[in-house]
């Protein structure tokens, strides 16, 4: 069949199918195949040095059994859960607050927006190092300022003591992640037609009323999606924890993401790391399923 014989519509469709190829290749080779490999390896007890050989042992459920009976696994699940549960809503609230401020008719709004969005561009590892310096136990400026305003009694070893390490990581996460949600929500706010607010004002609705009856409903799907993305990102966050505490002190901040890395590249237990990976995947899948409806609307509309 020659190209010339096809109708324009057929040619268009062929073109659309053709340009989808590179993406399909990438998804299959670099994403779905590795995912399949993880699933497979989670049933074998292999170590990282033996991975180039073929698997000779029969598949086993031992990785999963070991994992489920391991206190450290439940602990890391708890750490990931706590981290996500605290950091997600807080990051979201900060981002939403900033977006609402920036949505006002201001002079120099663009300058404010650029300045407030800057943390997004900073590499997470660099941000984490700066926060390590700020929260240093003896010479950190955080201790100085907080003590100066009598908010803490004495110097705190923020990253070294079990009760504050995760909180410090959460603060860093909020700083690094809030700009993206600010921008996303700001985009949502600016898509709301001004006539809605005018009509509400004519009807005598106050600011709070306008916020509850117009802003929130209009932003519903953006809010769900940004909360979901945020939760997923934070649940699998690696860089911040790896740089700031490497899981310490005393494994208090060892999240699932970090234990996968440790199992695979420190203890070389590829099978166990894969089993942990599958658990992470299932949890993330759960988060997505909760938010399925707005997601569908968003992707297929």
């Amino acid at each position, binding site marked *: 069949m020659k190209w010339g014989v096809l109708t324009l519509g057929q040619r*268009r469709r062929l*073109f*659309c*199918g053709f*340009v*989808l190829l*590179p*993406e399909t290749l*990438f998804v299959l080779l670099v*994403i*779905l*195949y*590795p*995912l399949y*490999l993880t699933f497979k390896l989670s049933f074998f007890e292999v170590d990282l040095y033996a*991975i180039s050989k073929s698997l000779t042992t029969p598949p086993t459920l031992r990785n999963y059994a070991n994992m489920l009976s391991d206190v450290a696994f439940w602990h890391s699940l708890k750490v990931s859960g706590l981290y996500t549960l605290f950091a997600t809503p807080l990051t979201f609230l900060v981002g939403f607050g*900033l977006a609402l401020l*920036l949505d006002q008719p*201001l002079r120099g709004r663009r300058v404010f*927006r*650029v300045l*407030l*969005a*800057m943390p997004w*561009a*900073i*590499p*997470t*590892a*660099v*941000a984490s*190092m*700066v926060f390590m*310096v*700020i929260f240093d136990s*003896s010479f950190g*400026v955080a201790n*100085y300022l907080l003590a100066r305003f009598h908010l803490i009694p004495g110097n705190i070893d923020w990253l070294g003591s079990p009760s504050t390490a995760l909180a410090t990581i959460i603060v860093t996460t909020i700083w690094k992640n809030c700009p993206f949600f600010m921008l*996303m929500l*700001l985009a*949502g706010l600016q898509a709301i037609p001004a006539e809605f607010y005018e009509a509400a004002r004519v009807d005598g609705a106050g600011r709070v009323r306008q916020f509850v009856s117009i802003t929130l409903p209009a932003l519903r799907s953006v809010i769900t999606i940004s909360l979901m993305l945020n939760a*997923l990102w934070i649940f*699998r966050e*690696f*860089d911040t924890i*790896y*740089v700031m505490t490497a899981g310490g002190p005393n494994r208090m901040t060892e999240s699932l*993401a970090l234990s*996968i*890395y440790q199992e695979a590249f420190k203890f070389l237990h*590829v099978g166990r790391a894969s089993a942990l*990976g599958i658990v*992470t*995947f299932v949890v*993330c*899948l759960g988060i*997505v399923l909760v938010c399925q409806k707005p997601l569908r609307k*968003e*992707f297929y*509309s």
Partner: protein
Amino acid sequence: MKPALPRHWSKDLGPHWQMLSIYSLLGLAVVLLLFPLYWMFLIATLHDDQLLLYPPVFLPDRGLFLHPFARIFVDRPLVQWLLNSTYVAVLTTVISLGVSALGGYSLSRIKTPESRVMGAMLLLVRMLPGTLLIVPLYIVFHRLHLIDNRVTLVIANTSYIIPFGVWMMKGFFDGIPKEIEESAQVDGCTIFGAFVRVTLALSRPGLAATAMYCFVFSWGELLFARTLINSGQKGTITAGVTTYIGDTTISWNDMMAASLLACLPVLIIFLFLEKHLVRGLVAGSIK
């Protein structure tokens, strides 16, 4: 005698107070959010004997001390790292942008069951944690003898970016009526020509936003960069600066100088392209 206040001040005190509080809240937010960046800059330019003072020094009152910036280049292969990062980030951006634009176009224009499956797959893929992919990717690249190769990093980063990139570009193309490109085709443009000259040309802000996302991501990426590259010479700057952690021979000003260097290129790009990001997000995430 006190000068009289402008009359509308007393009449219209409400909105003025409101604007004032909004500005002061914004000012406070700027101070809080930019403080860590200021602190990085400050520490990087302090004299060696000012580092461990308590109370800490808040202003570079003895002038900027630039020795750290000279020392760090002697101490570690920073130039090489910066070049590696540039190589990885630019190549990742070009490839990801191409693949995302083509894929996003296709998903935006055909609504068949297959493209829906692809869309669902992308959604699924978006939630895969990097830590989940790193183990199998390491194994695959190990078998291909591609560990310690910068191209590996480009492929890994691209795989991570594509789902988001396609999604963002699809949103942009959805906003461009297909009648425009169809009329170009009727006027004698080839389908590909119409795609490049009409559709892509109209979605330049979307391309800019996606490109910036790709660049920022691959510049700051740490997990792949640390595991897929083993030798110090071939690493990226982001992975490189993390080698300062726990190194007791390194002083804070050197560490912060290197950190500053690691984020300057990406900050500059950000400042140039920031305005497109919001537009890209409007198109990509809101409908």
